[in-house]
């Protein structure tokens, strides 16, 4: 472990510049109440077989009673590891070192396991990141909440039940009697998150560490959770709130620490950090929030070169030539789809949904989880046959047609899925993934030419490459596509697992563009990504649309994202379209109560 040790020291040394800012804040905190937790020079290294991961690099912070410190940063920046280090659960293989790790006067460094157990759940409550899977699915919610009570003998055995109900009620769970008897899967995400918080609060801890407590939730529920944590803080509990979403934590945090690559790059009072960000990274994070920006502005820092690439790609002329004149590109007419639930009853996933998309248009679909967005996308893609209604694509029937009939038109409608990893054959390299799409597009180009003579006029030049299937030209085309989505050709031999989330989604976009489609259907293409990466992808899609004239059907549960990218919006709830119209109109004057509810819950910057 000598190598690991020396790396830690080096990193700590390199960090000294940031540490000064950190310590100023610490002094400020000391003056008020005296911090409950003091962390300085915390360092966590995960030894790997060949490379070690230096997850946290000498960070320092402090939290006082009745104060909320938010740690914000992108995925992988070390937030969760920091949280786990506070309860000594980083993992057996990790090596943790710290200059100081003090909790209410107890030195946590080198604490024995039995002593740790006395602190965990009793004095420090940890709300784990993945609320939806952090409750044991095989035990009732009541049993889960009661566990800390029992382990620490907080209340007498007979009083456990009453206390559990109290805790649930206190955490904002209506009808606690019933909920306590239910299993986690019978609870909605929000309720589960609250139950998890209730179990963390069971031991009446002095410090609550909440790791991304709002991430998996609908905006409306998010607000409730933050309110709950706010109340806790006001009652004197110290709260360490962790999130990747700067804006979301803004209304709760007293102070914010911004993390990146295991270091705290900036730390200060919330107003100061949001209002006058000092570090470039903080600025970039703030800029990446889509809802904070007017439509059409760029979310990510970009180079001028990008537009040049795009222009070169299209040969200067925006697309749209192959669209059939006068008819919408995609015409969805009151489609409906029912599914059989496991209990045998039928359940409408989509009811009477109609919309059209014209060439080059961007239609956004927004709605809560389970509202039928994906089902609509699949119907549009011809992957699911609607039970009622019909779909026309490029002026000809799409639903109800045989796959053979559709095949000629397939290249004109492509998709970018939510889960990029799952959308790639795990055995394929990037070269093969995109190459396959290029070959497929080439193989069908003739069909297209023959299918509609009226549409064939300006046959895009690039399509000719695939026609004779020459490997060389295919490789060229693949390289071109990668360049288009901003990926380096060094990624060509990599497999999907060896790519980052952002890179994967770019590969997916490259694949979708291989056939120069008229329409790309994107089902939550950025939901799995960090804000900053999300910003880049949104920009890329916007650019592509602008430059190539590709129409978009864009699905998201995130209002900000939808507002940013779409011309028109469809709001879905329970399988129905509850409201539709011009994007700006809907966001400024929502007609339906549900839309208003959604909008009201969106967190806003100061």
């Amino acid at each position: 472990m000598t190598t690991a040790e020396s790396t830690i020291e080096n990193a700590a040394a390199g960090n000294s510049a940031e540490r000064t800012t950190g310590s100023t804040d610490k002094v400020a905190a000391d003056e008020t109440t005296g911090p409950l937790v003091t962390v300085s020079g915390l360092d966590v290294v995960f030894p790997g077989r060949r490379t070690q991961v230096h997850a946290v690099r000498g960070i320092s912070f402090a939290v006082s009673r009745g104060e909320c410190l938010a740690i914000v940063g992108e995925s992988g920046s070390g937030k969760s590891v920091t949280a786990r280090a506070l309860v000594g659960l980083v993992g057996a293989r990790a090596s943790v070192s710290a200059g100081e790790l003090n909790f209410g006067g107890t030195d946590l460094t080198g604490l024995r396991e039995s002593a740790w157990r006395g602190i965990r759940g009793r004095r420090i409550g940890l709300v784990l990141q993945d609320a939806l899977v952090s409750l044991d699915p095989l035990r009732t919610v009541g049993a889960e909440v009661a566990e800390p009570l029992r382990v620490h003998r907080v209340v007498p055995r007979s009083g456990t039940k009453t206390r559990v109900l109290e805790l649930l009620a206190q955490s904002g769970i209506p009808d606690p009697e019933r909920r306590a008897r239910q299993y986690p899967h019978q609870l909605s995400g929000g309720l589960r998150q609250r139950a998890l918080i209730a179990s963390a609060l069971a031991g009446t801890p002095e410090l609550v560490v909440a790791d991304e407590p709002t991430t998996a939730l609908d905006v409306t529920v998010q607000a409730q959770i933050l309110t709950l944590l706010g109340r806790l803080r006001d009652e004197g509990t110290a709260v360490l709130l962790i999130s990747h979403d700067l804006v979301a934590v803004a209304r709760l945090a007293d102070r914010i620490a911004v993390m990146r690559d295991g270091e705290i790059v900036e730390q200060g009072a919330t107003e100061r950090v949001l209002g006058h960000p000092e570090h470039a990274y903080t600025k970039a994070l703030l800029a990446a929030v889509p809802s904070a920006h007017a439509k059409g502005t760029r979310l990510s820092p970009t180079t001028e070169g990008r537009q040049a690439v795009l222009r070169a790609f299209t040969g200067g002329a925006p697309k749209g030539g192959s669209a059939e004149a006068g008819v919408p590109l995609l015409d969805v007419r009151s489609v409906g789809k029912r599914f059989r639930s496991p209990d045998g009853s039928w359940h409408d996933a989509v009811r009477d949904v109609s919309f059209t998309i014209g060439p080059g248009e961007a239609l956004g679909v927004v709605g809560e989880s389970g509202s039928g967005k994906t089902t609509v996308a699949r119907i549009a893609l011809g992957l699911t046959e609607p039970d009622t209604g019909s779909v026309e694509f490029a002026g000809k029937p799409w639903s109800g047609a045989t796959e053979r009939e559709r095949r000629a038109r397939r290249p004109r409608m492509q998709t970018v899925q939510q889960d990029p990893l799952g959308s790639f054959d795990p055995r394929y390299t990037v070269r093969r993934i995109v190459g396959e799409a290029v070959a497929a597009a080439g193989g069908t180009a003739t069909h297209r030419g023959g299918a509609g003579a009226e549409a064939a006029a300006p046959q895009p030049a690039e399509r000719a490459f695939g026609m004779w299937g020459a490997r060389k030209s295919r490789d060229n085309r693949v390289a071109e596509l990668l360049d288009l989505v901003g990926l380096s050709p060094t990624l060509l031999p990599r497999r999907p697992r060896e790519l980052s989330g952002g890179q994967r989604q770019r590969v997916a976009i490259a694949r979708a563009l291989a056939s120069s489609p008229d329409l790309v259907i994107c089902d939550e293409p950025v939901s799995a990504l960090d804000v900053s990466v999300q910003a880049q992808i949104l920009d890329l899609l916007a650019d592509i649309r602008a430059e190539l004239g590709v129409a978009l059907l864009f699905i998201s549960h995130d209002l900000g994202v939808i507002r940013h990218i779409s011309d028109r919006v469809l709001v879905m709830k329970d399988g129905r379209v509850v409201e539709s119209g011009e994007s700006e109109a809907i966001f400024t004057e929502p007609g339906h109560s549900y839309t208003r509810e959604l909008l009201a819950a969106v967190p806003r910057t100061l």
Partner: protein
Amino acid sequence: MSAVAATAAESAVPAVRFRIRRARPGAFLAAALLVLLLAAALFPGLFTDTSPTATDPVNALQAPSGENWFGTDQLGRDTYTRVVFGARTSLLIGLGATAFAVVSGMVLGLAAALGGRVADNLLMRAADVLLALPELLLALLIVTVLGTGTTNVMIAVALAAAPGYARLVRAEALVVRGAGYVEAAAVLGLPRRTVVVRHVLPNTVGPLLVMGTIGFGTALINASGLSFLGLGAQPPSPEWGAMLSEGRNFLDTAWWIGVFPGAAVTVAVIAVNVAGHRARVRFHGGTPR
């Protein structure tokens, strides 16, 4: 360099490269043993120049010595030679049965998963019935119908194992059939046949092959069980299971007759299991779960 450089977030994700060459000592040993066993099966002449069937009753039941490393059996045949030559029949039964089971399981499983409701129902109900019977009982029955002998034992063991593989392939193919990349390929407009051959098949076969390495051990053990019950491969060509079962009556007079072929079975099964385990780790390491 492209216009947009890989951002901080992207570069923070370490490139997970295949870790292939870092074999552990156990895996290395297993691989070496496998190679040795295969060599013995293919070229027994490399390891010994005696004949496995040449009898020499005068030198019967000699304990292991420099002359006869593993001793001699009741007819004075060299046990070492017989173990070496036995590798062929035994591995043939193990590999042959496994290959047969894997291939037929694959064909039937794919047919069930991709062939529509009727085929699926028909095949899976048939598999239900076969799976309801213990593998050994099924093998016993099949041997009764077909008669004993190396080939028949192989077929019996294979048929008894096949429904399990068919099930596995079907389950796997159903998952793969709905996988994002299969839909992505369909959206690209690739014909169904192409999708099946390029994406469904290879991704289904991976776990099957891994299961097969484990099935090999089961096949070998089942075959030796049949030998023990008197329904195994036939003498005089040596086979481990038969030798082992012959040797059981010599446990206190001439332990070497049974112990060495027994050790050969155990070593072969362990070697293949370890290799299979490594393959499984590699396989899971190479794909998302």
